[in-house]
């Protein structure tokens, strides 16, 4: 079941909060079904960019276009997965998934839980879930309605390293199966390279680097090409200072 993702255009997009410029003159075309990763130091405005695309904040200038029609208010195509799972503790696991489905459809919710491997917890309360399971549930909720755009706001940042790799794999699998357009905001350079068709680096309020990744999937993190791209990105982030010099403190 291949569902066509949405086509996105960011045109002269800018955002200022209380006279402080967060993002300035962002221009970008995203193809349907493309997987974009957005990286950058914390506070660089990558989450703001995601909120603009979700329609949760209004741009100060410019516009977001969805399949060539300008976005007004909340983005109807988008589902968002947040860093904190944002589950409703008073609803059972399957009810949390059904929240975004028309008519709180139980079959569809169970289907989504099955896709993320959480079907056996469907009737439990969310408070009994582990951190990884909570994010799995949040992912099931996000994909249950087969959205054409999935926005991921550092969704694995709080998970342990092994669970994180598992979740990244799961997202890639679902993306390949459903064909939605995906935008992943992350501070993890490896995660960006492992998943994305294109990695965007945001620095100084604009897109400082727009790097297509041509590695075949599923990507080997140990490969020389992978390491070279990682070096390139880290070099772009830290500039001339990279690799960071090691000094012995107190020597």
């Amino acid at each position, binding site marked *: 079941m291949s569902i066509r993702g949405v086509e996105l255009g960011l045109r002269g997009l800018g955002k200022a909060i209380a006279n402080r410029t967060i993002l300035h003159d962002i221009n970008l075309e995203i193809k349907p079904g493309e997987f974009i990763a957005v990286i950058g130091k914390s506070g660089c405005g990558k989450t703001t960019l995601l909120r603009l695309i979700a329609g949760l904040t209004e741009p100060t200038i410019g516009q977001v276009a969805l399949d060539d029609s300008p976005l007004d208010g*909340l983005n109807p195509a988008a589902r968002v997965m947040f860093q904190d799972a*944002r589950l*409703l503790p008073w609803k059972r696991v399957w009810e949390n998934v059904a929240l*975004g489905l028309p008519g709180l459809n139980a079959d569809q919710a169970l289907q989504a839980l099955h896709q993320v491997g959480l079907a056996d917890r469907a009737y439990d309360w969310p*408070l009994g879930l582990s951190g990884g399971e909570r994010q799995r549930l949040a992912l099931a909720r996000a994909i249950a309605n087969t959205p054409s755009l999935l926005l991921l706001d550092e969704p694995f940042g709080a998970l342990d390293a092994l669970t994180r790799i598992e979740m990244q794999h799961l997202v890639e699998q679902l993306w390949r199966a459903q064909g939605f357009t995906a935008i992943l905001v992350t501070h993890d350079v490896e995660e960006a390279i492992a998943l994305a068709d294109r990695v965007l680096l945001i620095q100084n309020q604009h897109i400082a680097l727009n790097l297509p990744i041509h590695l075949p999937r599923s990507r080997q993190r140990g490969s020389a090409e992978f390491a070279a791209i990682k070096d390139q990105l880290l070099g772009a982030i830290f500039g001339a200072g990279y690799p960071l010099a090691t000094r012995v403190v107190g020597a």
Partner: protein
Amino acid sequence: MALAIEQPTTSATRPARRLQLRQLGQRWLPWLVPVLLIGVWQLSATLGWISARVLPAPSTILQTTWDLLLHHNLLGDIAISTRRALVGLAIGGGLGFGFGLLNGTFAISEQLFDSSFQMIRNIPHLALLPLVILWFGIGETARLFLVAFGVFFPLYLNTYHGVRSIDPKLREMGIVYGLSKWGLFRHIIFPGALPSILVGLRHALGVMWLTLIVAESLASNAGIGHLTMNAREFMQTDVLVMGIVIYALLGKLADTIARLIERRSLRWQVGA
């Protein structure tokens, strides 16, 4: 608590038996002090240590209760008092709940009403009694007004607080997932505020009985309060004590029901 403790078919191992004993203890221990007190009371009355004028024996009170039940429509009085309590709760509690939701949700409504409510809240509502009698006379309206006034504030404050303390991130999530205003209320705001609302309800139940007792004692032609006031006129200490015990039992019953509702609707908190 219909928790039957099953006897194991094979001879119980020692830890199992100890567990049974502990369960038995947990179940019956809270009753020990009341039962002992009543025992001492009965004994003192029978031996004539306390005069029946001051405090009649528990057995006498039971006897009186039985008589009143059979010949003087005691159940009717209990029903009247309960009805007054519930009608007052429905009016005052309903208003408190409604305003709590309103002021928790809309800034305009909060700015308009909240500071006034906070001001009125500081009046001990029983102090209004003389004024209420002046306004409404000594009829049913006065009693209902007092009860409604008393229960308004616990429900208002706790509902308001419950709505305000819902994580705005959850609300945002609901909006992103396409919930309507009604959907947001039904799935996020109301269940999120419910623990706090139930705390308010239990508090309100306490205020409800307290207010009713005072209101009924002062001026009433039926109900438990009327019964006890009459009893005072005729020095019937047994009827007086019975009235007090009935109030205690009604209060305990209301609290138990509220706790059952709480346990039923907040199961998610224990994750079972």
